[in-house]
């Protein structure tokens, strides 16, 4: 604090050349601070930036690994992936439809549960939120094992119960739409707890007086929900939408073990394509694919931000 004051009082009088020197002296004085934050930057340069730059060169090359030199082929990897890779197209469509389905249902569900858990006179709130958060400790592999038993066509829990109720079983893992529903159920089960907790935390940070004031003005429960709660949750919602999007694009273990991308590639994910390319030593295409996924995430995030912004401004107008 004291140092900050000293610099701000000396800097304005200093000439440009000595200003640089003063900054350098200031930096040298803070060398320990730079040392403390340096691990991140070193690691990021070596394991983040360097592979990214090298990967860009790789994405313009054909290289099956080993001692063979990289062969420069321009944008061919990108072109062939984008125009003739049917599996990539399939994975892309699957990811988009999963996103379109899972974001509203998952976040909507978590929000409803969080609002209910936030009820003023609720007892045992702590127990409920702990239980809902429990799936957090499971891994994608283990969840896939448990769900593949649940969803077995002949002996799975769900179909046995349906049959007890006199209904016919559903081929959960062997038909396209049920398989997609199965993956969605698994992801909801795994991920809802964290979302509920984040929503609950955000709800509890909203000042109760705002609701009381709205009530005085004659607002009913729904009006204050859409007029106060939702706008206050905006930053949290943005955070959750972006993390969920990135999570879905990295989706691999659960689906690999539950459906292996089938049936008819209906649950094939983007990351599965990535792992295929690595597994078959098509590194140039794999590197190009990485940049394509990066671009996809960028575009999706941009659309989400635009969409949310316009949605919010409409909300604001309605409120007035």
């Amino acid at each position: 604090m004291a140092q900050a004051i000293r610099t701000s009082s000396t800097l304005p009088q200093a000439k440009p050349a000595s200003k640089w020197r003063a900054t350098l002296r200031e930096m040298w004085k803070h060398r320990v601070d730079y040392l403390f934050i340096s691990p991140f930057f070193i690691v990021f340069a070596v394991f983040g930036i360097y592979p990214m730059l090298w990967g860009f060169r790789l994405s313009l090359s054909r290289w099956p690994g080993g001692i063979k030199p990289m062969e420069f082929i321009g944008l061919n990897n990108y072109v062939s992936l984008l125009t003739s890779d049917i599996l990539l197209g399939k994975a892309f469509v699957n990811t988009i439809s999963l996103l379109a389905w899972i974001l509203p249902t998952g976040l909507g569900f978590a929000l409803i549960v969080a609002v209910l858990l936030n009820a003023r006179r609720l007892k045992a709130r702590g127990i409920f939120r702990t239980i809902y958060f429990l799936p957090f400790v499971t891994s994608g592999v283990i969840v896939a094992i448990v769900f593949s038993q649940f969803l077995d066509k002949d002996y799975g829990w769900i179909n046995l119960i349906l049959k007890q109720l006199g209904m016919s079983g559903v081929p959960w893992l062997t038909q396209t739409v049920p398989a997609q529903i199965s993956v969605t159920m698994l992801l909801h089960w795994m991920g809802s707890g964290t979302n509920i907790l984040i929503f609950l935390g955000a709800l509890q940070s909203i000042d109760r007086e705002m609701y009381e004031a709205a009530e005085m003005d004659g607002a009913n429960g729904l009006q204050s929900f859409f007029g106060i709660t939702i706008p206050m949750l905006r930053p949290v919602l943005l955070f959750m939408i972006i993390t969920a999007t990135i999570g879905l694009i990295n989706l691999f273990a659960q689906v690999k073990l539950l459906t292996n991308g089938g049936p008819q590639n209906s649950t094939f994910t983007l990351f599965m394509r990535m792992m295929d390319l690595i597994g078959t030593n098509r590194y140039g295409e794999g590197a190009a694919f990485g940049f394509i996924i990066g671009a996809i995430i960028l575009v999706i995030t941009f659309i989400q931000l635009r969409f949310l912004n316009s949605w919010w401004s409409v909300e604001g107008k309605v409120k007035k």
Partner: protein
Amino acid sequence: MAAVTSMNPVKPASAKPSMRLSRIIGYGLLYLFLIVLALIFIFPFYSMIAGSLMPSSELFRSYPVLWPPDGPSLTAYRLLLRLASPAELEAAKLQNINNYNFLRYVFNTLLVAGVAVTLQVFFNTLAGYTFAKRNFPFKNQLFSVVMATLLLPTAINFVPFYLQMAITFGWKNTYLPFWIPSLATAFGIFMMRQFISSTIPDDIIDSATMDGASQLAIATRIVMPIMAGGMVVLGILTFVGIYNEYILTSLMIDKPDLRTVQLFLSNFKAATIRAPLYDLLFAGSVMATIPLLIIFFVFQRRLVEGIMSGAIKG
């Protein structure tokens, strides 16, 4: 919901009894919903445990089996832990089960996650403290760089990163890919910065500086003890993430002795895809989850509050 929000103090007194009734009904429905939901969240755990205690043939029946009909049996656990009697081995038709070393895989996983957590928590707290409490040139710009890397998707450099690990550094079949590249993480730095700037008063650090304490001493003797709670939250999030990691593990580890639990379970499931040995898969899953469940319940309160406190959201 309606019952919860309709508690209006300025209503006439005559409305009270019916209000109270509707509130009771509202809360009754609320509890019912929350309890059913809790059962849905618990049931997979229950079925995993129950399934591990009976031969997998019991799971292939035409009606749901909630509990082992012949009483619980620990055969699956004994088979995995190489404690099975020759008779049990014979009955299970799994002579090669003794090629697996389940405890070793648990140990490997704990080792990978334990070292990674220690390194990450230490370096992230150090950086988080520096960004939260120190003033130095270009601090905000450097912090913006840290935050910007959060938006970089893993996929963007995944293939070259893999090749770097496997070929350039030759780290295949070591655990270094889980330790070194994530020595310090943007997520961890951000989280610790949030925790530290909201809990540690500037006075403590200023007075320690006046007393001539070194930066390292302030960070390790003052900040870290106070921040133990926050470090535990970050530690658990990291630990669970690495303990359950699958993608990088499956690319880096192919020596059987170095396998993690997740890798073993996924290999074992793939190897028995036609007639899954659910008893063994479930027993393995239960044993793999136990360390995490212990951590979860010991630090449950702290963890839940850490996540709710908003330290992890942008």
